[in-house]
């Protein structure tokens, strides 16, 4: 039990990280979801994955981005940092864009292209906020 307590205490101490670390990690995760969504959209466009799968993957990306936003939002101490506030706003935009990409699969190419543009722009904003 003592060993377990020491392990947990070490982990809790190590969990207190500065906002830049927290933001950097979130930016990396967000990029992962966005890159996955983009790759899925590319493969769907070239007919290499079925529509049902593309919808699932884009929904996962949207949920992943929402979870990342919620994770940052829960940490009140880092939310005061303006870079984090910018990243949260961009994460919101990215999850909306992922949702639009999913909806646009069955619609025209213009709408898909617009959603891709939005998600790329949101990704850029998140990465810039993390690097500032």
């Amino acid at each position, binding site marked *: 039990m003592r*060993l*377990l307590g020491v*392990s*947990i205490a*070490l*982990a*809790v101490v*190590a*969990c207190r990280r500065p906002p830049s670390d927290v933001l950097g990690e979130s930016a*990396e*995760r967000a*990029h*992962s*979801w966005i*890159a*996955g969504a983009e*790759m*899925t959209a590319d*493969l769907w466009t070239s*007919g*290499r*994955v*079925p*529509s*049902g*799968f593309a*919808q*699932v*993957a884009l929904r*996962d990306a949207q949920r*992943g981005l929402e979870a990342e936003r919620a994770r940052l939002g829960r940490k009140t101490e880092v939310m005061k940092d303006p870079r984090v506030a910018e990243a949260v706003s961009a994460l919101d935009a990215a999850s909306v864009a992922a949702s639009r990409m999913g909806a646009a699969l069955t619609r025209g190419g213009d709408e898909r292209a617009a959603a891709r543009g939005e998600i790329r722009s949101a990704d850029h904003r998140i990465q810039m906020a993390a690097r500032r």
Partner: protein
Amino acid sequence: MKNAVRVLLGVVTSIGGFIEAGSISTSAQAGALFGFRLLWAVALAAICVAFLIEMSGRLAAVSHHTLAAAVRERFGVTFHIGPIVAELLLDILVLTAEIGGVGTALQLLTGRPVRLWVLPTAFLVWLLLWVGNFDAIENSVALLGLVTLCFVVAAYRLHPSWPDVARGFVPSVADHHVARYGFLAVSICGATISPYLLNFYSSGAVEEKWTEKDCAMNRVVASLGMGFGAVVAMGVLVTAAMVLQPRGIAADAFSQVALVLTPAFGRWGFYLFAASLAIGCLGAALEVALNMAYLLGQSLGWSWGENLRPKDGTRFSLVFTLAIGLSAVLVLLGLDPLRLTLFSMALTVIILPVLVLPFLVLMNDEHYVGRHTNGWLGNAVVGFVVVAGFLMALVAIPLQILGGS
């Protein structure tokens, strides 16, 4: 000739049975986040599991005892309760992850939610166990599992830098995400050295009535089977490193991992991945559910055996029925199969020393294994697993918190 066929079948079933939700998810995440750098963990875990599997087969062939029955007889029921409860809890988590894994594969194929597939999957697992016999189940699902060799072909077709791949076999410290690296190394070991495999393998040997004469065949099957199985897991890791890492995709969901085979196989890649995940998880679900029934049956002295008709082994059949039902409920409650898999793999290493230490005693007891006691190398490997498992157990909780999410 007959022996050669048995060896070949044994090796083939080991390859087919190696890949499941745990090995796919841990290897894919390792490749996606750290390139080839965690190949050493797969290799090390494979060497350890090959030794342990060979020992459990040897124990069964010589003593005609399964691992659980021998531990109970040698150490008494009181000692046996802790490890049994720990293994049953772990098995439930793994079974839940595997049923969820089949559901996820069907979700990827159809776009319909995982929950829709949970009950049909659980029913299929139960039905196969209810009507099938040991050989039919093991051979058919494991033969289908050869589809997982597509990961090896994909790794080859993606033309990785082989010197870089070779460097991955040298243990190294990560230059970024150290906690995540440690967590994945521990999880890979947990996914490969699954405790259920040991008792399942020895139970299979008893069901197939192995004798001392089968020791040589057992050695070949364990080493070649686990070796080739590990090559498949390495194929997953290399493929993820080639496809996902350059794009910055971390393999945080099976829908991301599902992209890894498409660059190598085009449209077929997606279907090959879904088939590999579904068949691998189905095979593992059958084995884990069966192992839970073996474990309780052998520990409590019931009549047990997959070759028994359900009416001749009612308590045995009841255990796997309840286990499958409980796991299905846990998936329906919304437990995420991927997260559950990673968690249960880390948990495996925590309880591994408790499960493996009695094994070391048994394998040196002439009353059980006669002249086939362990050599120094076998003892060294088991000792290493116990010590490494203990050390990994110490760091597993902090790593779970820091690197597991």
